[in-house]
Structure formats: C-alpha cells, structure tokens
C-alpha cells in the first residue's frame, strides 16, 4: 500500500512541470458578510470567476462590481477562511456548471456539486460539458410559437389555464396555498407523457427538510429519474441563492439545445430577489423601491427570457419556466409580483380564502390567465372545456345569491347548481395528477350535465368509479382513441356517451362498479 502511494507520488513529481510566468494578481483588502473587496486585477471581466488563495485552501468568488480601484466580489465558498492580504487570481472564465444526462436523479448545489451523498456525478469532472450560468436568451429567429402542451395533470389548469412547452407561467400566491404542490404535480404528471420533458426543480432559500421531502416524493413516485434538483437552501449563503435559478436554467438549456423538452421550476423568485437585494446592499449598490436594486427587473427578465421553444432548424427543443412568487397577504401589486407578472406569459393565482374553504387547488379563475398556452392546448380538452370558464364566471356572479336560493328563478338556480358541481369537479388532491384523457372525460361528463343529478358529496366517488369503469370496459375505444388522436371525435364522443349512460344506471342503482365488472368478467 505504502509502496503504491510512494510510486504514484514519484511519478507525479517526475511529470511535474512548472514555468513561473508574470501573472495578474489582486489582494483582498476587505472581507465580510460573504463579500470581498479586492484591489488589483484591473483587467478582470464582469462576472469573472476569481480564485482567492487562503492559508488553507482556494476559495472561488464572482467579480460583481468593477469599480475604479476595487472589485466587489461575491464569495462562493467558505468566507471565514478569507483574510485581508490574501492573493486573488483571475481565471478568465465566467461562472459555469457541468451539465449532462448524468445529472438526472441527482440533487446538486448551484455550482454543480452533489448534495445527495450519492458520490461524484461525472466520472471525469474535467471532461464534462460546461454551460455558463449567464447566457444570452435564444434570438427571435431561433424561436417558434408555443405549440405543444405541457400537461400539469391538474384539471383546472389544463382546462382553463393551459401551459405550452416553452412558455413562462407564474405560480403566485400567499404562503401555504399550494404553489409547490402544483409544481410537484406537474413534475409527477410527466411520468404519463409520451414525449417526457426533463424536469429541473430549483429550490431557492427553502428549508432543507422541504427539499428532502420533495426528493423523497419524487423518488417514491418514480419521477426522480427524469428530474434534477438544484438546491440553495435557507442556510446557504446569499450568493448561492442568487445563482441557483441561473444554474437550473443552464441545465435546462443543455437539454433544450440537444432537442429535448425541459421544464424548470424556480421555487421561489421572491427569495431570489431577497438574496440579490442582500448582495446588492452589501456591495453598496444604490437601493431603489423596497430597497431592491435598480436592475432587479432585468435580473428576472433575462432569466425568464431564456425559456423558449426553438424552431426545427435549432433542434426543436424547449425550455418551459414555472417561476413561483410568494405574496404577502394576497398583495399581487407589490414590486416583485408585478415585475414577474409582467415578464411571464400568464399566471396561476392561488388564494388563501379558497384554500381554507377546501377548494384545492385554490385557483382564482378570474385572476389566473395563460396568454399563449391556448394555442398549445390539446384539442380534446379544448373541445370539452370551452364553456368551463364561462360557466364558472356566471356562477361567481351569482354566488352571492346562493344563500337566498329559494327566491331565485329556475334558470338561475340551475346555473348556481352547475357552478357548484363544476367547482367540486375541479377539486383535486395533491400528488394525484390525472392523465389528459381522464381530464377530458371528467370535464365532458360535468359540462354535458351528467352530474347535475349527482349529490355534490358523491361527485368524487362518481368521478373515480367512472374512470375505473371506462378503463375496464372501454379503454381502447375511449382512452386509447383520445390518446391517439388527441381529440374527441364524433365516434369517440358517441361511445363516451354510451359508456357514461351505462355507468350512471349502475351508479344510481348503488352498485359499485368494481363488483359489477367482476360479475361481468366472471
């Protein structure tokens, strides 16, 4: 053993070549709070990666502020090791992250280092392809319109706020309203997709326990194999929290550039803005509204602009972004929420009131919108859900009269009843996303009036048993046909009507479909 080590060292020493040359250097003149002020290195580039040589190790820093006499740098490692007088060298490179399919199923930090204890990600880290964290967004000519749906598996979203691949859809709401659940369901639902996108979940300033829980859920549900988690937890320095979304985006861009579809979730950009504010104030940049620096809009716009649907000439890949913003007391007119609303192609607005009323997902249909997704919506869902928004809007207008229902005319009563049914149908537990074929069937049944005589408290049973019945009796004729043609043609619609009528007779007679179908099979 000792002999091997000695021989290895001897070889290294024999092969060691060192030619000292005149090198540009700087010196740390001030350090604290994760920031270092460096003199010298007058030719450093903005965003250049710098190497600080401390007594015990090398610590990397990012050139952030290039001033007349100093560089304000953000420390990316152990800041405590840095002392005044330490040497600093430029690397000539901007910050980049190793990328590749080896990242799938892993939890990494924004610098690409593994956090999941599963060992090295790349066999040879030096040979892994690297993508810069800051990259110019694809140009206008490289893009095409959003035309492929990204199913979330959540009925209310896929029906009324459809998301397309390459779109940027904001998920916004107060704390504990189910923002992360929507993102998580979307990742889980990709398991059912034929052309499955690679999912990247970026946790910014989240509790480590939450990240661990998400990783566990994804693993248990078999979704981790196509997911990458980039985590800069609440205990990470502000610098890493600031870099996390760019790292997630760079990983997504790698897959997009290779012609694949990728989905990146930024959870959440409010904490990202806070981290950037902290760094900016420490670097003495002038504070603006709510003490955020003047370029906070540009920070988020250049990040989200990197989401794109590339045209065929550029590989046809896409990067869909689902940024999350946490509001305070439902105030969507605060600085960061309004910024991100204006940058994205729509928003999913979640409300605490609805959440506590038991409407989950707590989607405010009136304030939620998808500006480009309808072009990508699956025809089957578009056909069945066309009237959904209108009927719900009518219900909301009449909702206030529910308590005086006995004084209302029959038409109004019918509209209120239909609204209550639709609200019940759109309720969905988390971690159980539905296939788009299931969504199309359920929405068809609800909007065609088949649920009008079903008691509200039995709607969930009806839904579950109907899907079970169709899967057992008409799988190919209904689910198979919708899945293949992606639309609900006349023949399939006729079969579906027949199946629903059959099922209703059984359901109304009080039989459970499972016992009925087993009778038939026997």
């Amino acid at each position, binding site marked *: 053993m000792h002999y091997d080590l000695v021989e290895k060292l001897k070889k290294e*020493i024999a092969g*060691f070549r060192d030619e*000292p*040359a*005149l*090198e540009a*250097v*700087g*010196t740390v003149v001030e350090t604290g709070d994760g920031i270092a002020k460096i003199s010298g290195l007058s030719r450093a580039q903005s965003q250049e990666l710098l190497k600080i040589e401390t007594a015990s190790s090398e610590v990397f820093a990012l050139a952030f502020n290039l001033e007349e006499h100093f560089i304000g740098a953000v420390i990316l490692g152990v800041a405590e090791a840095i002392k005044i007088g330490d*040497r600093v060298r430029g690397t000539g490179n901007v910050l980049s992250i190793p990328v590749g399919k080896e990242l799938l199923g892993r939890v990494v930090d924004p610098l690409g280092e593994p956090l999941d204890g599963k060992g090295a990600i790349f066999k040879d880290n030096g040979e892994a392809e690297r993508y810069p964290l800051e990259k110019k967004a694809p140009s206008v000519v490289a893009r095409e319109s959003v035309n492929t749906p990204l199913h979330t598996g959540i009925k209310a979203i896929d029906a009324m706020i459809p998301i397309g691949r390459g779109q940027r859809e904001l998920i916004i709401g107060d704390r504990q309203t189910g923002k992360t659940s929507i993102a998580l369901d979307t990742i889980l639902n990709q398991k059912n997709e034929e052309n499955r996108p690679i999912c990247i979940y970026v946790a910014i300033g989240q509790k480590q326990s939450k990240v661990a829980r998400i990783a566990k859920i994804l693993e248990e549900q078999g979704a981790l194999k196509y997911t990458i988690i980039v985590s800069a937890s609440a205990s990470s320095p502000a610098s890493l929290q600031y870099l996390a979304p760019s790292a997630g985006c760079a990983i997504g861009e790698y897959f997009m550039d290779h012609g694949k579809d990728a989905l990146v979730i930024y959870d959440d950009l409010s904490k990202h803005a806070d981290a950037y504010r902290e760094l900016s104030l420490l670097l003495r940049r002038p504070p603006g509204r709510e003490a955020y620096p003047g370029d906070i809009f540009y920070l988020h716009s250049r990040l989200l602009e990197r989401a794109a649907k590339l045209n065929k000439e550029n590989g046809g890949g896409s990067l869909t972004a689902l940024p999350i913003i946490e509001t305070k007391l439902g105030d969507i007119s605060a600085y960061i929420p309004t910024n991100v609303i204006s940058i994205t192609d729509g928003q999913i607005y979640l409300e605490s009131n609805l959440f506590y009323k038991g409407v989950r997902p707590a989607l405010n249909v009136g304030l939620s919108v998808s500006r480009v997704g309808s072009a990508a919506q699956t025809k089957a869902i578009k056909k069945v859900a066309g009237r959904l928004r209108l009927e719900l809007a009518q219900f909301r207008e009449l909702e206030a009269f529910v308590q005086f229902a006995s004084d209302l005319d029959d038409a109004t009563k019918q509209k209120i009843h239909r609204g209550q049914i639709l609200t019940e149908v759109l309720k969905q537990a988390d971690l159980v996303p539905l296939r788009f074929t299931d969504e199309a069937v359920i929405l068809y049944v609800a909007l065609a009036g088949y649920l009008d005589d079903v008691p509200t408290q039995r709607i969930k049973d009806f839904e579950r048993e109907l899907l079970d019945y169709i899967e057992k009796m008409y799988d190919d004729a209904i689910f198979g046909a919708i899945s293949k043609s992606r639309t609900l043609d006349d023949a399939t619609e006729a079969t579906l009507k027949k199946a629903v009528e059959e099922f209703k007779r059984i359901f109304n007679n009080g039989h459970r479909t499972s016992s009925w179908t087993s009778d038939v099979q026997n």
Partner: protein
Amino acid sequence: MKYTPEIYARAVREAIDEAPVGERDKVFKRFVQAVARKGDARKLPAVVRELERSDVHAKGGRMVTIEFARTLGHETSEFKSFLKPEDHLENRVNPDLVAGVRITIDEERELDFSLARRLNKMFR
C-alpha cells in the same frame, strides 16, 4: 460617504500643491487631524502608500515588492540592478513562501518563484 485612501491621497496632494512652500508641513498636519476626526486614522498608512505610489508613477517608475522566505544579506541589493532608477523597491520577509522569492509589480502583476507555490500546484 466613505472616503477611500485614494480620495484622501488625491485631496492632500492637491492641497499641498496649491499651498505656499512654507505652509506645506502645516497642510499635511491639518490633513492628518481631519482624517482622525473622521475616524479614518487607520487608513493613514494606506494613504501614505498611495501618495508614494502616485509619486513613483508620476516619475514613470513602478512599485516593486520583493518577498523572501527569510532575511537575506547583501543579495537583496542585487535585485536593484534589474530595476529602473525611478522604480520603488520594497523588501519584505514572508515565511509563508517556505523558500524562494516572489516579485510583485504595482500590486497587479506577480512573478512567483516560491516553493509554496510549487507545492500548492503539485498537491492541491
């Protein structure tokens, strides 16, 4: 507003240049008092260094620092023959170098012949 040593150096230089020759010592004394009043007395060595540097640069010279791992005798003077007369040479002892020498020019460029650097390069 925080005053950097560069700003202090520039201000005192201009004040001294504008003052009559006999008054210059007094101007410098008042400057030191003003800096102390602002609570920046710890910046005075850096201000002096900045003044030195601007003087040397104005004459077309460079600030050259040579670090040795241990105290040397007359050998240090041999380095002067490599420099221009306008250059400012400072010798320092830095045991962290382990052995060898490190030359820094204008705190911006460095030629490192130290053993510490070689060891770091080999084993880090």
